[in-house]
């Protein structure tokens, strides 16, 4: 198969870059190992748009973080993705913490972050009364925000697809070869030949780099973070994202609201061998809870809806590696994009696409289609709007997920999106059906029926999340036959 530009990895960076490159006249294909976009770190992180005071002044991270954070409000508005600027507090509980806070404040100023202020105890407790009263002082970062990371990635993928980008899911890269005319990329689904190759492979980005260059230059450490999510039924304990002082392993544990009104607790930071091992552990989940108690003494997980973990692709040297691949023609990369990668993605895509367009002499299209934001979720409509939505499509009158109030029309729309849902989890992340307190107990069978109809697949072939994650193993008749032949 032939394409002008091949992007490896359909995480938030790969999708943002594909979207920005789709402004130019070039055939673009995105290869993704998983069964859906946003399946790696992009779906399992804190969903925070960081203000930019954490990254060391002068680092690549600092550059993209600050620029990305600035882009976010209009970027999300354009794509119709929920974003909320709620501000963040970094809490200090000791004199040493206070010096950390002061250092972060200065670093933030150096990085060009606006809206930073150091608050003393009383002001913190007025602002966020449930904060541990032992707090000494805090750094307030007004520009810190919240975003749904996978919803952003889906919107970027859709927008790229309507502008002609091809997405090849379920297609892991097994080898990369340099050719005279460009690159050959081998996968179990055949070989792709391209002129320009871009590595946005997250946890695999160092391996792809080493394949491209033939040099073992980069090394990714898989840093796992475990989280709890609490139901949105109870009122939010905090309006701000509540950080503790950072450690050498990361930004420390946070208690944060999500854009959808849930509460997120986490993450841990554990270096593990397997980049796909997103299991949670009893120890890790307990560690999160204990650590969060310092911020929020009354924390408990009685209203937990689920727990999960994500893997941050930490490059050993500690910074993002972004740009042209040294010593290779027509090759670009984003390696070691860990936190603040989500915040940085819009800026990385904007700058890297401009760099590629200039270097590769790409011409702008006349016919670039603007993003079409998704209709307002049924759950957020006024009764008048809901009545109108039902009149326009009667399937808006059939609720499938009662916990999150998701209609059949919305589920069918999620499946029919340009890069549409193909699994129960795909529907869940695009519509929130199954994200509530019953965790799909009532709606998963209904969602499966709708998927089966829309995709024209028998129920026995539907998956929770691609691959062999089959929802049911057979029909009853087949099960009895199997049992009898045993």
């Amino acid at each position: 198969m032939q394409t002008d530009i091949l992007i490896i990895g359909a995480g938030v960076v790969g999708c943002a870059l594909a979207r920005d490159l789709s402004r130019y006249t070039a055939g673009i294909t995105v290869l993704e190992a998983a069964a859906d976009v946003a399946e790696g770190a992009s779906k399992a992180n804190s969903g925070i748009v960081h203000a930019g005071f954490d990254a060391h002044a002068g680092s690549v991270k600092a550059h993209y973080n600050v620029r990305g954070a600035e882009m976010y409000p209009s970027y999300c508005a354009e794509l119709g993705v929920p974003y909320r600027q709620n501000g963040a507090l970094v809490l200090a509980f000791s004199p040493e913490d206070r010096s950390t806070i002061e250092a972060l404040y200065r670093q933030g100023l150096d990085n060009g972050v606006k809206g930073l202020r150091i608050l003393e105890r009383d002001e913190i407790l007025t602002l966020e009364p449930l904060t541990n009263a032992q707090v000494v002082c805090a750094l307030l970062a007004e520009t810190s925000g919240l975003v749904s990371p996978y919803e952003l990635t889906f919107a970027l993928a859709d927008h790229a697809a309507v502008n002609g980008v091809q997405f090849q899911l379920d297609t892991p890269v097994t080898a990369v070869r340099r050719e005279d005319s460009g690159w050959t990329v081998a996968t179990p689904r055949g070989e792709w030949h391209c002129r320009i190759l871009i590595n946005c492979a997250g946890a695999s980005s160092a391996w792809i780099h080493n394949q491209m260059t033939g040099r073992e230059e980069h090394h990714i450490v898989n840093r796992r973070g475990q989280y709890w999510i609490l139901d949105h039924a109870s009122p939010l304990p905090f309006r701000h994202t509540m950080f503790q002082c950072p450690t050498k392993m990361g930004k420390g544990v946070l208690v944060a609201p999500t854009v959808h009104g849930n509460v997120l607790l986490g993450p841990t930071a554990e270096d593990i061998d397997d980049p796909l091992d997103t299991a949670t552990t009893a120890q890790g989940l307990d560690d999160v809870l204990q650590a969060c108690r310092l911020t929020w003494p009354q924390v408990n997980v009685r209203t937990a809806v689920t727990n999960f973990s994500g893997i941050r692709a930490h490059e050993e040297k500690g910074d993002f590696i972004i740009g042209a691949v040294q010593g290779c023609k027509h090759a670009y990369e984003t390696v070691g994009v860990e936190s603040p990668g989500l915040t940085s993605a819009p800026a990385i895509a904007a700058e890297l696409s401009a760099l590629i367009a200039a270097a590769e002499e790409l011409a702008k299209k006349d016919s670039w289609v603007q993003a079409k934001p998704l209709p307002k979720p049924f759950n957020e409509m006024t009764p008048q709007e809901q009545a109108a939505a039902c009149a326009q499509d009667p399937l808006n009158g059939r609720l499938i997920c009662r916990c999150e109030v998701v209609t059949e029309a919305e589920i069918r729309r999620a499946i029919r999106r340009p890069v549409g849902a193909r699994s129960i989890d795909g529907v869940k992340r695009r519509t929130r059906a199954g994200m509530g307190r019953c965790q799909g107990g009532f709606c998963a069978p209904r969602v499966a029926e709708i998927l089966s109809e829309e995709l024209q697949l028998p129920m026995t072939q539907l998956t929770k999340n691609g691959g062999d994650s089959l929802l049911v193993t057979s029909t009853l008749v087949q099960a009895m036959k199997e049992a009898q032949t045993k």
Partner: protein
Amino acid sequence: MEERIITCINCPMGCRVTVRLENGTVTQVSGNTCKRGESYARQEVVEPLRMVTAVVPVEGSVLPLSVKTAAPIPKALIADCMRCLSGLSVQPPIAAGSVVVANICGTGVDVIATRSVAAVSA
């Protein structure tokens, strides 16, 4: 002489009832708290009986038909009964209570529908 211990199911007590048998005849029942326990244990050692419920496919419909044995059948025949039902499918209309399989596995008990299925409208 043979001794069997039966857990009584009549109430949450779950009495462990000891039944003594000689040549297949019950000679003594002990450990039960009430009369119901004794009669249950006697039946259970001689010939345990169970109701069987299942579903069978309905032609032209996703929703299967739920069925039951009209009376309890010997426990030993449950697996045979399930096998017999597994090859089956039924055509609407079906009235609740109508016989789906007569005299299943020679037990003298019919398998009957536990709901109605309307005729498929043309």
